């Protein structure tokens, strides 16, 4: 029974991990940009939520997810419009890498200077500690909602990309940024929207994370590693692969911690390496 509960909690943690990877997969899939500032986006979401909850204490904590996500979209859009588009247009693969690397250093230390280095968390209130009965095991209501939210987001993103005008535009831009120009699409605008979505997902996930654990401005690096592992296990650019990757990593981490209580993410990392050796292109990619 204990093992089943570890499995379920691992899957629930995996939902959050999958959300970390979603934005990264989107940006890489569409722009071929490896966003080294993704971890800082996640932490930024946590801080935005922290301050919003502090200022508007009458609004329920879960409802604050909406403004955090909207701020994230605006932030990502602006970042792409002012800086990243110039780097993507250069056509040099190194340029966006240096740029996002610089941004991550800038954002991380900017947050340290502005908010201090002590760890903070968002108090999720009654919902955070509520639990329910699932197959005879008591699980937190909040993690279950998080996993459901992750699944819903993945499904709706997949649907939007496959079945809407916007989705077709994004897929076309990802494949042939120069050809879509002939059809009257501005690739730069599509990139802005995609980065907006990616930052919205990252900041939303960061806000949710802040309700589970304590975070400091330095927490971004670790989360970015998780996000990368999720995306790579899944196969770069594949959304269903990313959610599978998230769940697998979440389960591996909790099982590892059960066997060996101070292992941290050791077993999740080992599983990641084994997966890479067996399938260098990830779960969704072809076999080596």
């Amino acid at each position, binding site marked *: 029974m204990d093992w089943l509960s570890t499995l379920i909690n691992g899957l629930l943690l995996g939902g959050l991990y999958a959300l970390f990877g979603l934005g990264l997969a989107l940006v*890489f899939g569409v722009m071929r940009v*490896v966003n080294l500032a993704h971890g800082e986006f996640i932490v930024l979401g946590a801080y935005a939520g922290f301050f919003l909850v502090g200022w508007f204490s009458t609004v329920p904590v879960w409802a604050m997810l909406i403004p955090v996500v909207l701020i994230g979209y605006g932030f990502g859009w602006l970042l792409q419009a002012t*800086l990243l588009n*110039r*780097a993507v247009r*250069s*056509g*040099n693969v*190194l*340029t*966006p*890498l*240096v*740029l996002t*690397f*610089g*941004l*991550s*250093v*800038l*954002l*991380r*230390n*900017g947050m*340290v*200077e502005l908010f201090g280095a002590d760890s903070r968390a968002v108090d999720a209130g009654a919902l955070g500690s509520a639990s329910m009965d699932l197959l005879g095991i008591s699980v937190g209501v909040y993690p279950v909602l998080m996993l459901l939210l992750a699944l819903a987001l993945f499904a709706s993103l997949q649907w939007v990309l496959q079945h809407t005008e916007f989705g077709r535009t994004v897929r076309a831009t990802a494949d042939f940024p120069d050809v879509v120009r002939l059809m009257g699409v501005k690739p730069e605008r599509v990139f802005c929207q995609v980065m907006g979505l990616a930052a919205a997902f990252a900041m939303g996930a960061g806000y949710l994370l802040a309700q589970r654990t304590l975070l400091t401005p330095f927490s971004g*690096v670790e989360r970015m*590693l998780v996000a*990368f*592992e999720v995306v*790579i296990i899944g196969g*770069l650019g594949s959304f269903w692969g990313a959610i599978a990757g998230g769940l697998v990593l979440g389960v591996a981490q909790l099982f590892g911690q059960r066997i060996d209580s*101070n*292992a*941290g*993410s*050791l077993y999740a*990392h*080992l599983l*990641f*390496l084994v997966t*890479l*050796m067996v399938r*260098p292109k990830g779960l969704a990619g072809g076999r*080596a």
Partner: protein
Amino acid sequence: MKTSTWFPLAWTLPCALAAWLAPHWLDAGLMRLASEVLLAICMAQMWNLLAGYGGLMSLGHQLFIGVGAYALFDLAQRTGVSPYWLLPLTSLAGALCAALIAPALFRLRDAYFAIGIWVVAEVVALLVSKTSALGGSAGLTLDMSALEDIELFGQMSFWLACALGIVSVAGLQLLMRSRLGLAMTAVRDNEVAARSVGIDVQRVRLIAFVISGGMSALAGAVYFMGGMFLVPSAAFDVNWVVMMLFATLIGGIGSIGGPVIGVLIWFGLREVLATSLGISGGWYLIAMGAVAVVVSLYAPRGLLGLRLPASARRAAS
């Protein structure tokens, strides 16, 4: 070799002379700073060798720093031999480590390789901090009982740093003049074309990886030898690779002067902002981030890339 081959190395002689005399002029603080800068040059140069010439972007070079440092501390503890004699073994440990992980990691490319080696570094760091024989997360102190002259230790650490700084730059200059170096330059410029003229790209990469790992380990060992104390969180700190990446990309990747300039900017900014103006440490990192952003937009090939004429720059990007 012809004289012309050796001429570009002429700068090493005055540098070596200056290093020899430096302990007479510099106080302990400046000597520590100079050692730090020179070791950073060596590390950045080794990252550049792999990324700039081998085309493999690593986000896990802290692995080699940590492996070198732990090899030194552990061997000193076990054998009781003077740390100076153990240093060659640390670079062997780094090279061996690179050769061991290469078969697995070389199946990966680009982002996969970068993250793969980062995860390897994390795994090794976690394993080290769980191993009580290596001091666990509390760390190790260097066994200095075999040193005859403890007074000279500071100077020796400084000279070792000088040697590594000079050897890494001069060695890369020499390497790039050799057949292997030409093959590396070809791989850097165009991998497909290099393959087509019969260069074994994977072999060239493997050699670059092993040299890079071995020298980084040695630089890491010398760095922590100077501090005499070692904890896993410092040895396997991701900021090592952040420094190497910054220095190389800002200065100019795939050139020998680039990482040197990058390291000088990195430490120059730190000294001016944090030490001279007394601004809190975070702001110099913010300035560093801003420099990276500006350089990526206005000098995408790094600062040294600005020297190229516009036509060459277009061709390069």
